[in-house]
């Protein structure tokens, strides 16, 4: 996984709550057996609508998505994270993420930055005034920044310590776990014999 330290990019406002993973990528787009190419299904139902935020030229290069609460609810499909990444997003900012989506983001290297609902609103207001403006997300200091001068926005975001550590260092989870192989083997040797097996 690539290391993530800080990112500055065009921010797109997605002014909706409860954006479930079926909206992020509908099931019919999940049939690939690769981790790439899912950008075609990203927000598929909304992309035909000219007024949809990602269809506006000022957001063509967006890499930060600023969404309403309860982002990523529903299905466990990691394809939702891949679709966002394949499209070019590095960061999603929201006031509340569904657990599985948050976990998948951390594993795949998409930063899910949780901020106060008021911060989302401030960034949305800023983007209304300055379409195509950039937002900076600094994982080291856990801060989001937008704008300049007296109206500048600077606030902190939440991410659990362990995910932050892994993202900052670009660490592979499986590699970390396999360093505990002896502990796993010891645990296995003590499991009751009546526990079910498939083979």
């Amino acid at each position, binding site marked *: 996984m690539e290391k993530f330290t800080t990112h500055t990019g065009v921010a797109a406002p997605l002014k909706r709550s409860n954006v479930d993973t079926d909206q992020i990528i509908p099931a019919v787009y999940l049939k*690939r057996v690769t981790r790439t190419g899912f950008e075609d299904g990203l927000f598929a139902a909304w992309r035909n609508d000219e007024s949809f935020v990602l269809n506006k030229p000022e957001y063509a290069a967006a890499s930060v998505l600023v969404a309403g609460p309860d982002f990523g609810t529903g299905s466990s499909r990691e394809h939702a994270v891949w679709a966002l990444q394949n499209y070019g997003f590095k960061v999603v900012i929201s006031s509340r993420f569904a657990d599985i989506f948050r976990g998948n983001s951390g594993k795949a290297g998409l930063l899910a930055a949780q901020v106060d609902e008021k911060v989302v609103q401030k960034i949305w207001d800023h983007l209304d005034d300055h379409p195509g403006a950039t937002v900076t997300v600094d994982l080291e200091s856990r801060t989001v920044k937008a704008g300049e001068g007296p109206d500048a926005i600077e606030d902190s975001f939440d991410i659990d310590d362990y995910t932050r550590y892994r993202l900052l260092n670009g660490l592979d989870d499986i590699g970390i776990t396999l360093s505990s192989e002896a502990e796993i083997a010891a645990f296995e040797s003590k499991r009751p014999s009546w526990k079910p097996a498939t083979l």
Partner: protein
Amino acid sequence: MGKTLSEKVWDEHVVRSAEGEPDLLFIDLHLIHEVTSPQAFDGLRLAGRKVRRPDLTLATEDHNVPTLDWDKPIADPVSKTQVDTLRKNAEEFGVRLHPLGDVEQGIVHVVGPQLGLTQPGMTIVCGDSHTSTHGAFGAIAFGIGTSEVEHVLATQTLMQAKPKTMAVTINGSLPEGVTAKDMVLTLITHTGTGGGQGYIVEYRGQAIEELSMEGRMTVCNMSIEWGAKAGLIAPDQTTFDYIEGKPEAPKGADWDAAVAHWKTLVTDEDAEFDKEIVLDASEMTPFVTWGTNPGQGVPLGGNVPDPESFDDEQDRIGAENALKYMGLEAGMPMRDVHVDTVFVGSCTNGRIEDLRLAAEIIKGHKVADGTRLLVVPGSVRVRMQAETEGLHEVFIEAGAEWRGAGCSMCLGMNPDQLTPGERSASTSNRNFEGRQGKGGRTHLVSVPVAAATAVRGTLSSPADLSELAGAGA
């Protein structure tokens, strides 16, 4: 201080625990299907890794499979590739697979319990959010993403931060004709889609204890729809009776040892939950959704709500968008909503008890003109059992379509989809925009409401059918 049920199960599975790190949890059973596993197996191959415990892994084909012509090659080439990929991976890595055509094939969350692989006190994961279903047996069961599927394949463990605990106590008894589905839909409207976030939930109370295993699975299945990490129910005699004799259940002395342990899996009297919700089952009624998330529901006897009635701005905007998408007007009685397609099936309501209930209500009636009824068993075993009992004849005589086993119209990855603007009453778990087909409009309902709706063509309860008969119609 004592421990809650979920804390007991969690603590029994901790391989390694360290300050500032998530716990490393051992996984007792890893279920796999074709959609969320191909990239995980690819990852293993790239790293030169093996499946650590194929003997704790089980694969089945469910999301993509057709429910018609299942004896022929899958017509959709992309679906076929995905299914073929699972078959190749299962063979290469030595994983037991129940493919299309196999007698044990079906929806992964129906197959695990019916094989007896789902048992109390286990940790069970699958690359599917409805893995919470298995919590009905007193297991910690939750959905994971593909990166985690790869992690479990390689290590048989997962790194997990310990969630908070919540008790949902449902007192009283459900009235006649009100089901586990109505109970959980009522709960989700009460909490909202994010109300369970960060918690493992224990469902308890008289109404939960009175549920069958099928009903308990329906409740736990929808834990994810209000954001919970997992939902579980303490195992009791109902649980033991369900498991005993199943193909993979412990036998002889093993059975006695297992049951002795399972009986310890209850929340201690002095244990404390981080949060508690209390509801009264005796006040519950048939419950249906009007919107585009499972938290947007009302009693069947109610009306489509006015978006202005919501205090929270996001809820108001959400309701406005939902009504527009659903083609509904505020104030309209739910019973006036005409339904094009009724879907009975899914990991929420596709078990034998569900089909028995649907058949009992439909018997002697016909599916309404202009409405179609799809009955999709959750597994081949459920289908065979239903046919042994003659349920399929009841459905076919009523004019319903009797299909093969799979996820089917719950998510429309196979050809069973709604067309734009088509409206369904569905016993499944999600009414998201486009979930059952692009532009499709979904109302989540219980099995009795689905069956009665198929007969009347508008959202209905079985009580409405007796009125139909009384009016001489």
